């Protein structure tokens, strides 16, 4: 009993394949440049950025943030389930995570449809240029991120992962968390801060 309550000893490397962490760092560096560029470009015309930021749908952004956070949590539960050697439960959590990802894509697509219907384009102004390029770049990462849990869910269903070997699932999981992590900065920066 006491052994189970003892914290696991620290490990030298993060969960998942080390290569995915290198890839994630490269992705995060690109997003960091995007975020800093947005913030410094805003200095050139604060009033214009504030005016057009007010046209964004904060309710949709809230739903999307909650969808990604919930999706990340479901992935944590999926990995916990496979560690308990419960592949069926793990697959169910992964499918739930995918459903949250799909909700994000639907809500974001509706937002784009609304803006395009209003005549908003990349060339409309600097704010919309950043808004559309930043959020669409992230949108593509969500699409890619959904392919990975879907593949992991399929492999789990086929019995590829177990309590003793689930590195592939952890690798897919950390990529999905990265997609969530980026949105957590993007949401206040683009939708709220002024």
């Amino acid at each position, binding site marked *: 009993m006491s*052994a*189970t*309550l003892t*914290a*696991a000893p*620290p*490990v*030298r*490397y*993060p*969960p998942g394949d080390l290569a995915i*962490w290198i890839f994630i*760092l490269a992705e*995060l*560096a690109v*997003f*960091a440049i995007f*975020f*800093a560029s947005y*913030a*410094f470009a*805003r*200095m050139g015309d*604060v009033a214009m950025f504030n005016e057009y930021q007010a046209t964004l749908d*904060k*309710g949709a*952004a*809230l739903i999307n*943030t*909650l969808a990604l*956070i*919930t999706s*990340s*949590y479901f*992935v*944590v*539960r999926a990995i*916990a389930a496979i*560690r*308990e*050697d419960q592949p069926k439960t793990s697959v169910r959590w992964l499918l739930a995570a995918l459903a949250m990802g799909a909700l994000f894509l639907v809500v974001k697509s509706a937002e784009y449809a609304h803006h395009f219907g209003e005549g908003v384009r990349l060339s409309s102004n600097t704010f919309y240029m950043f808004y559309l390029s930043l959020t669409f770049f992230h949108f593509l990462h969500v699409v890619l991120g959904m392919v990975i849990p879907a593949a992991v869910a399929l492999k789990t269903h086929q019995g590829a992962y177990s*309590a003793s070997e689930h590195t592939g699932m*952890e690798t897919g*999981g*950390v990529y999905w*968390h*990265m997609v*969530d*992590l980026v949105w*957590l*900065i993007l*949401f*206040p*920066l683009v*939708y*709220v*801060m*002024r």
Partner: protein
Amino acid sequence: MNTIMKTQIAIRPCTRIYLLLVVLTVVTFAVGYFELLSGNRALFLSLLVLGFALIKGQLIGDFFMGLKGVRGPWRFVILLWLLIPGTLITIAFTLAG
């Protein structure tokens, strides 16, 4: 048995972290939705919600990505990433007034 107990022990903090992430997200939304970012407090509240985002990011890194149990340079990789754009955004918003 040991694996199951260890996992259950690990899940509880993750559930608490998830609920904390939800609360901080709703607070961030409320600050924007109720247009609290006006006048003298705009910069302070903007940096406050940015601070919430950085805390949320570190929680994701530590508990969801599993970096809390890692020693050495990988332990701080997400924190370092959060601090770089976080500092630049803070500088840009402060200079913009």
